[in-house]
């Protein structure tokens, strides 16, 4: 038994080595820089905590991530539900459509939103041409544009875990509830929905955690006023060569993300939520 175990570990070794060299070690260095530059100590963390700009940036980051998560889970749930339950023949096509955006770079998808949402972009021009509006709406360079584009980018990350979860649910349960006289809505609410809670949990967690560290979309569509932490870090390092504060902020973001996972772990079975496969 033990030799079997050792053999499995051996298989994982190359991947572990790559992680250790290219991820863990640089990460340790970042931690080290955050407490050693420009002077040893926790000065960078104190500076960050005292800076209104930094704390506001964290608030913005969590707010945008939370909004993105809520919309992604709602839209993703509907989408996954449709794929899993209603349409049978079109299933492969629908799954392909969900996956398709992964083949286009986030940068290009974000630029497409600029073309759509600009002051003289497609949406504004169309609305004006049909006479709905007189002057262009402000659809980007604000939080609305950022959340809209981020929901688009993150949606597949919500659909896929939900779909995996829903495919494992036997239709027999809902059929039985209907057979016993429950209305369609009641059957969904009392029988189907509770079974998809793990899927909702893992979708929400995945989208939220990815959104926290998101960089490109907010930087392009935020107009500088939706300053998320990741952009603030870039700003510290590129503009001021301030590696100390930049590193401290990234450590703080990492710790905050870990805290989210710990708190989520109290309410849902993380092992099931993240590793569940039907």
């Amino acid at each position, binding site marked *: 038994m033990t030799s079997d175990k050792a053999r499995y570990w051996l298989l994982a070794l190359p991947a572990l080595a790559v992680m250790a060299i290219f991820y863990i070690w640089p990460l340790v260095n970042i931690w080290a820089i955050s407490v050693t530059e420009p002077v040893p100590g926790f000065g960078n963390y104190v500076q960050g905590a005292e*800076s*209104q*700009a930094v704390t*506001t*940036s964290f608030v*913005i980051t969590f707010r945008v991530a939370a909004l993105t998560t809520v919309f992604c889970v709602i839209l993703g749930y509907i989408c996954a539900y449709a794929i899993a339950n209603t349409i049978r023949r079109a299933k492969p096509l629908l799954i392909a459509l969900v996956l398709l955006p992964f083949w286009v770079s986030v940068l290009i998808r974000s630029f497409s939103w600029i073309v759509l949402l*600009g*002051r*003289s*972009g497609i949406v504004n021009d169309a609305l004006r041409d049909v006479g709905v509006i007189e002057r262009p709406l402000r659809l980007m*360079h604000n939080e609305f544009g950022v959340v809209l584009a981020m929901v688009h980018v993150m949606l597949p990350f919500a659909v896929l875990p939900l779909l995996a979860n829903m495919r494992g649910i036997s239709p027999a349960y809902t059929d039985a509830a209907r057979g016993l006289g429950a209305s369609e809505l009641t059957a969904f609410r009392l029988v189907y929905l509770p079974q998809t809670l793990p899927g909702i949990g893992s979708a929400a967690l995945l989208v939220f955690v990815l959104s926290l560290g998101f960089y490109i979309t907010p*930087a392009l569509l935020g*107009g*500088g*006023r*939706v*300053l998320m932490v990741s952009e*603030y870090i870039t*700003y510290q*390092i*590129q*503009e*001021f*060569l*301030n*590696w100390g504060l930049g590193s401290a902020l990234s450590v703080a973001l990492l710790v905050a993300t870990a805290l989210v996972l710990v708190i989520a772990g109290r309410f849902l079975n993380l092992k099931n939520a993240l590793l569940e496969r039907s």
Partner: protein
Amino acid sequence: MSHDNDFKRDLAEIAAHKLREGRITKRGFLQAMAALGVIPMAGLGGRAMAAPSELVIVNWGGTAADVIKEVLGDTYKEATGIDVVIDGSGPSAGRIRAMVESGAVVWDVCDSGPGSAIILGEAGVTEPMNYDIIDRTKMMEGTDWEYGAGNYVYSYVLAYNPKLSEGGVPTSWADVFDTKNFPGMRTFRKAVRGMLECATMAQGVPLAEVYDVLSTEDGIDAAIEQFRKIRENVIVWGSGSESQNLFLQEEVVMGNIWSTRAHLLKDEMDEGTFAVSFDGGVMSPGTWVVPKGNPAGAEEAMKFIAFAQDPALQVKWFELIGSAPINPAAAPLVPESMSRWNPTSPENVATQILYNDEWYAANQIAAEEKYVNALIN
């Protein structure tokens, strides 16, 4: 400038920083530089010798590299027989220092800025300018630094779209900061460079007193407050091309952008949809610097810098890329139609101030934090 170049440049700067602090050995530093492709491996053995009949001029790449080649390189070859090689890889202060400290200098003359020129001179890695060869009278007053000679000028200027501006044409910074009478979006730079000056002028401070006012805490706070007031109408630009796009896509009505980008916009936008006011502009000079131990020798480098002071060449440079002549004698040679777009025409110089590097060295980081806070909080 490709992203990869930016990245390498940044890494080179960091490595040089670590070397200074004794975190890595010189050997390790050179290996790191070679691995990054910053220093050619062949240059590591001994001194990399450019042929004595050749000068290596370094700038930031792109169109500007072609323009230097055409305007200065080919003419210099004609005049002196010395070949001019243009290297567009970006002579940041960090890279110049790294190159000199490594002992493998392959650059002769670099396109830098006053801030970097002062820092590099103090670090002892660049040659002092020889003003017996370079003519002080052929450069704008105040741009003859000990370790750097002014080479061209760009300005932070008020640019606007008269067609989109509902409140009429903005004529001063006060109008730009007045969103009631001049509705619409504005653009300002993401960082404070060149921005606090206009916010100070908007409060009615005369040109000559702008940096005096900004040298007090209250002065900085008052300027920052101007941005806080209008932040709902602000979109920031991070790179020059971004500022250009904001005008092209009609996202903004007015803003504070580089005159070099305005120079491109005047040709790209329809007649009557783009204009610039140099009233209250901030002129920012570029400088030539010469790395210590440059292959062609300091004197050859100085001769080239003196050659580039020729007013006719500077006008040509301006026409091609929008970097304005630093030689006051060049202004009359600028064609009539382009004169009003020239940051260094006598009329425009009279209404602008010179970018103050000492102020930025002392105040930038503190001001930067307040600026970001005012925009997002």
